[in-house]
């Protein structure tokens, strides 16, 4: 092999790792009528040190992804202002955008940047809000997501959930069919995927702690299931349970002090609650049926779970202090894996419709069940922390992929991975920073 050939091989390898890094890409599969027209001008770069990403592009992609906004293509812009004194509102009224976002990224000490942005009401011709945010090269994407959150909240009245993350499981088989399973964490837009656990044996059921700092999950390493809790930032982990039989379905209480889980150590699967400080365990359900997939109500008073005590899997609800569970779902013959939205009113779950497994959203106030997905093997739904969207696992082009749907079912988008199957997404809570 001559040197030139070797070089081109190296280049291809570099390119392919680049591709692999752009792990999840988002495509909108179903549009939204009446999305808010907005213009986000690419942010100007001041100084010699180029920022690694264009903040404006990230903000624009976030807002488009939500389905609530329709960003103006950059090519259609009549001007590219970055400072307030450069804005001529006539340029923006002419192209019918209601809101305008401009900004600058300037150097701010070694490795640091200062991101300034302004949001305008085009027709009133006035600034609605504006911030100046110090950041670093590695935090620049997070800063862009924060800006998208601020714009989203200012214009819709609801908090944004762009500066959050997702955890999910991937499975890749080599040519011999040997499977490698990864537990990964990525930004909510699919960027920065990082493997936090890698195994030859199944990994399942990632669950975020309410402060977003830990993930509980099930691992079949050493050919038996056990529940682990791992710190997201340090990678330090600890085995919580490995009883005889099933150790599964971990779910954090809203205060992070307790973990609901499924154990079959007494003969069949029942829900237990573990006090994480004392490591004490108490049974919550005791029934010959399969009781599993616990999830806490946001007020921490109830737990919903899947049980086939009535002959088929349905959702039941029980007080955290115990007692007789009451049935929650009555529509359909298969309802499973329910979890609450932050408002405590809506439950999302897997529901079977004419033999297809789809994502449903149940309004517990009136019992209405709305079907939000259209696949046949959809599973593992999880609400965004602001309740605006649900992320779930589905299949497309023969692969397991992740998709997100707005809670009203009007916007659906697919997150596609380059290789392997992706499944079991869990949307993080709002990340609670410490001492910052």
């Amino acid at each position: 092999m001559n040197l030139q050939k070797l070089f081109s091989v190296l280049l291809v390898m570099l390119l392919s790792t680049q591709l692999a890094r752009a792990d999840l890409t988002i495509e909108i599969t179903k549009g939204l009528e009446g999305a808010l027209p907005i213009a986000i001008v690419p942010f100007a770069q001041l100084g010699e040190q180029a920022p690694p990403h264009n903040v404006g592009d990230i903000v624009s992609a976030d807002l488009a992804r939500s389905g609530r906004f329709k960003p103006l293509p950059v090519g259609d812009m009549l001007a590219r202002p970055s400072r307030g004194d450069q804005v001529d509102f006539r340029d923006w009224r002419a192209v019918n955008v209601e809101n305008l976002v401009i900004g600058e990224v300037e150097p701010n000490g070694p490795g640091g940047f200062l991101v300034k942005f302004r949001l305008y009401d085009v027709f009133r011709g006035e600034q609605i809000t504006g911030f100046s945010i110090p950041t670093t090269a590695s935090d620049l994407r997070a800063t862009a997501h924060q800006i998208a959150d601020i714009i989203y909240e200012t214009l819709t009245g609801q908090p944004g959930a762009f500066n959050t993350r997702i955890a999910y499981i991937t499975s890749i088989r080599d040519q011999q069919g040997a499977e490698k399973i990864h537990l990964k964490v990525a930004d909510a837009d699919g960027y920065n995927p990082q493997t936090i656990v890698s195994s030859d044996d199944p990994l399942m059921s990632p669950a975020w702690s309410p402060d977003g700092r830990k993930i509980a999950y099930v691992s079949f390493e050493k050919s038996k299931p056990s529940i682990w809790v791992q710190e997201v930032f340090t990678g330090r982990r600890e085995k919580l349970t490995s009883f005889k039989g099933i150790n599964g379905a971990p779910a954090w209480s809203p205060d992070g002090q307790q973990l609901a889980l499924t154990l079959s150590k007494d003969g069949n699967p029942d829900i237990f609650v573990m006090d994480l400080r004392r490591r004490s365990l108490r049974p919550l359900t005791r029934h010959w049926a399969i009781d599993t997939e616990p999830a806490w109500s946001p007020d921490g008073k109830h737990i919903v779970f899947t049980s086939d005590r009535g002959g088929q899997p349905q959702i039941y609800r029980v007080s955290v202090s115990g007692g007789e569970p009451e049935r929650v779902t009555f529509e359909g013959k298969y309802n499973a894996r329910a979890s609450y939205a932050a408002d405590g009113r809506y439950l999302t779950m897997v529901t079977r419709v004419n033999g297809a497994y789809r994502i449903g959203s149940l309004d517990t106030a009136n019992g209405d069940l709305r079907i939000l997905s259209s696949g046949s093997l959809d599973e593992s739904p999880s609400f965004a922390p602001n309740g605006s969207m649900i992320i779930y696992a589905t299949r497309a082009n023969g692969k397991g992929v992740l998709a997100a749907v707005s809670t009203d079912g009007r916007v659906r988008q697919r997150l596609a991975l380059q290789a392997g199957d992706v499944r079991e997404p869990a949307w993080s809570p709002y990340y609670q920073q410490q001492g910052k």
Partner: protein
Amino acid sequence: MNTTRLAWLAIAAAALILTGCSGTGTRDDGGAAGGAQVVEGGAGAQTAGVGGAGAWTGSPLDDPNSMLSTRKVYFDFDQSEILPEYVPVLRAHAEYLSANRLVNVTIEGHCDERGSREYNIGLGERRASAVQRFLEAEGVDSAQISTLSYGEERPEALGHDESAWSQNRRGVLVY
């Protein structure tokens, strides 16, 4: 893991190596072909024990003509009842285990991919338990049996249709 179990594993492994390449051929041909391959195949280190374990011919577990060589039973959708066609196979395993009290078996329970994953872990365990109860009813000591549910996490067939699903709804006896 106790030493008896280790010994059995060694014997099983040896038998696997010996019969691994036999395919559908007769036992004698398969043994010869397999043996030759092992010697040439660089797996020499592993085969050191094979000579000593030659006594495996006495173990019906590895006899391809015995029902014991069938280690899988299949289930109907969302069901955990033992189907009548698998009763003879499970009886043969029960007889073998009853006659060999030092042999342990793990029963794996598996599901097809439909439905939620943790619920399928429960369903897989129910299938494994159904096999366990059958063996116990046939006189096997419960101390010889353990169960492990993989739910839908370890499919045997990778397709997404009924033919794949029916192969994945299974109980597997692992000696």
